[in-house]
């Protein structure tokens, strides 16, 4: 598997790069133990791993939403387009073009779908006409939202809420979206629909994506590159196609080992691999 890591995302121009980031919650709980990854311009990069591996924390350390949960980036650096962004407020970061779509959608339940979308444009000072254009563009990608535009978001379906959350982020005209667990609690068909739109946005609007997913196979199908996390560390990385065919990945995330069922005691864990970046 080591040969494959050479086909690294780092070969493209580093766009978003995080280096050896350590995150501590509540001053005591060490959650990220030195995570490094890069996303190239125009890429879709998947961040995979089981529950509690640290995927969401990684995304939040980039978008600076940790403060609200008593988390702190205690080590490492985060750069976007060559500039340090770790000390920015979420507001400033959104203005620079990085926005997060949080796990569990987090739509504003008592606002209508359209009002939800409009809040996404909060950081932009634009005219009414431009606002309308942005809105139409979002409706173009998510026709279902247009039908439900005047419903309260809390009463729409899970898929519609996920679309609303992504659409809301689009309203900020981002260059990079950190998408956390878009497939959570959705029917497989809707998951496909949403990933198709993500792919579409990536191709047509040149939005780069870093997406955290538990649904490994779907995520790898739609992304270019993948990182796998375990216990707050990156344990494996590689081209999406390579990872999708990797025996270990198959074993961990699909339960397909090819050698029949294994005892729970034989399950592999990865040790930390040393990385000599930066």
């Amino acid at each position: 598997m080591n040969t494959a890591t050479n086909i690294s995302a780092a070969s493209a121009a580093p766009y978003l790069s995080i280096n050896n980031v350590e995150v501590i919650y509540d001053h005591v709980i060490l959650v990220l133990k030195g995570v490094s990854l890069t996303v190239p311009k125009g890429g879709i990069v998947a961040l995979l791993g089981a529950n509690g591996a640290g995927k969401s924390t990684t995304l939040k350390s980039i978008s600076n939403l940790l403060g609200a949960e008593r988390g702190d980036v205690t080590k490492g650096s985060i750069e976007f387009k060559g500039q340090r962004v770790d000390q920015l407020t979420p507001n400033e970061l959104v203005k620079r073009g990085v926005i997060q779509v949080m796990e569990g959608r987090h739509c504003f339940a008592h606002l209508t779908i359209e009002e939800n979308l409009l809040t996404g444009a909060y950081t932009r000072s634009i005219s009414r006409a431009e606002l309308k254009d942005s809105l139409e563009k979002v409706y173009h990608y998510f026709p279902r939202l247009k039908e439900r535009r005047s419903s309260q978001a809390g009463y729409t379906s899970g898929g519609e809420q996920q679309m609303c959350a992504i659409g809301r982020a689009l309203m900020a005209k981002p260059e990079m979206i950190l998408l956390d667990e878009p497939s959570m609690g959705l029917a497989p068909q809707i998951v496909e629909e949403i990933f198709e739109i993500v792919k579409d946005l990536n191709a047509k609007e040149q939005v780069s994506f870093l997406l955290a997913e538990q649904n490994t196979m779907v995520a790898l199908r739609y992304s270019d590159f993948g990182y796998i996390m375990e216990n707050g560390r990156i344990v494996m990385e590689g081209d999406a196609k390579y990872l999708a065919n990797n025996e270990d990945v198959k074993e961990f995330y699909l339960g397909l080992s090819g050698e029949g069922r294994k005892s729970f005691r034989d399950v592999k864990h990865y040790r930390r691999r040393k990385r000599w970046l930066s």
Partner: protein
Amino acid sequence: MTFFFEVLIGGLLSGVLYALVALGFVLIFKASGVFNFAQGAMVFFAALTFVGFTEVLPGWTGLAPGSGAVFWLAFALALSSMIVLGIATEKVVLRPLVNQPPITLFMATIGLTFFVEGVAQGIWGTSVRGLDLGIDDEPVMFLMDNFNMLVSKFDVIAAAIALVLFVTLAILFQYTKVGRALRAVADDHQAALSVGIPLKHIWAIVWGVAGFVALIAGLIWGARNGVQFALTFTALKALPVLILGGFTSVPGAIIGGLIIGASEKLAEVYLGPYVGGGIEGWFPYILAMLFLLVRPEGLFGEKHIDRV
């Protein structure tokens, strides 16, 4: 029957004023999840500051006491002090406590109550003062002549001012960018933060608006009952209003205020004689307690929208 309507109208009009105080609580509770116990003290502080300025301004500026210029200058100064007080509270008291349990924040606002009351009296003195808004407290002639009803003109005008304020705020919240952001923050802090809404600005705005509402309430209540320490207790009447209307609903605060205002006056007049009077002071609290048993979230309290 005329008498009944007279009492009812009087009650409803004073209810609007309860609603005005309750509105200050609702705004802050909705946007930041803090139950601001100091709202009553802020009402007192506002009224006292206004009266204080009307007293000292003629000396400082040479304007004629009681003139329009003094009124508006004092209003502007009191308004700025309220906005400064609101924003300072948010910055100094509440922001360092962000992410703490609600009870901690609540205790902080109780402490703040005594501090604000103390400062207000320290600066302006403790004597009871009159406050003249230039509106006469006389019966409305039209109702007097045609229906033989005694309705105070002051109450009518005060209620009208309050209603204009409600409508203005409702329009601002519904249709402006900042209003939308405010409602978004009320719904979900985290998500609001994630789309780049700066919570600190929004909170500062909310506290500023709450200060403004407190000033209007303080002026009207002060003109009605005199500017004195008891104003803080009047402000506490907002509690039963909130329990009735729901802590998170602006329409709830208004409807709750109307119900409390009307029912306390009617109870005083019709039930009072049987229990020896003085029912007005505690009837709203009993009503609120009974209401808690039936509908704890209040009439218009935000229903938790939950999809499974």
